């Protein structure tokens, strides 16, 4: 069963569309379910990769 804007529906009644994105910042996948041309469910999963660290520094006394 899929949670949709019209309540829980059997997956077999819906058109499933999937996509993905991968770059230096993230790996993302999403899934959509459509009913007669109407988007009734969309979920997304973003896997964050990393961000630049804070650079810490100890100043020279000279």
């Amino acid at each position, binding site marked *: 069963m899929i949670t*949709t804007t019209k309540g829980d529906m059997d997956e077999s009644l819906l058109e499933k569309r999937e996509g993905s994105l991968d770059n230096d*910042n993230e790996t*993302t996948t999403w899934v959509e379910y459509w009913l007669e041309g109407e988007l009734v469910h969309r979920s997304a999963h973003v896997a964050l990769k*990393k*961000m630049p660290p804070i*650079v810490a520094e100890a100043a020279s006394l000279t």
Partner: protein
Amino acid sequence: MANTQAMCTSFMGQLLNGGHQFGAITLVSRTSLTAPTVDTFKAALYLTTATVNASTTAYSASNEVSGTGYTAGGVTITGSPAWNAPTATNTSTTAGTAFTTPTASITYTTVTLATAFDAVLIYNSTQNNTAVSVHTFGSQTITAGTFTLTMPANTTAAALLRIATT
């Protein structure tokens, strides 16, 4: 207007004053506080039209997402513990990295967020909602579904929060 991935500058200053508690620590007494409890951190989502970045000092509901199933302020970063124990590792005699990452994914379950969003603000809800960091991603909407943010590996090279010398 755009969101920009960054460590919040105010957060760095607060670190020098011991203003955030990601994990357990035993302190030499500062009058009375020797074993402070770990703070609670939350994650709020922001619209693509928001401007959250290094200058963000605290959580604000301005330009935060809204919709069915989403509560203003976002969700609490959960886990047991919520964050990996902050770790400091030397990489040479002059360099090293301190780092931590939430132990679990951040999940917004059964929400409808019809307006595009592309950023999450991590903030300390225990300490007056002070901002920690902003993380951006490709623009998303959610329809009667779940939005999940999976954390990077908790390593010197990839942890969500890293303080490094080079």
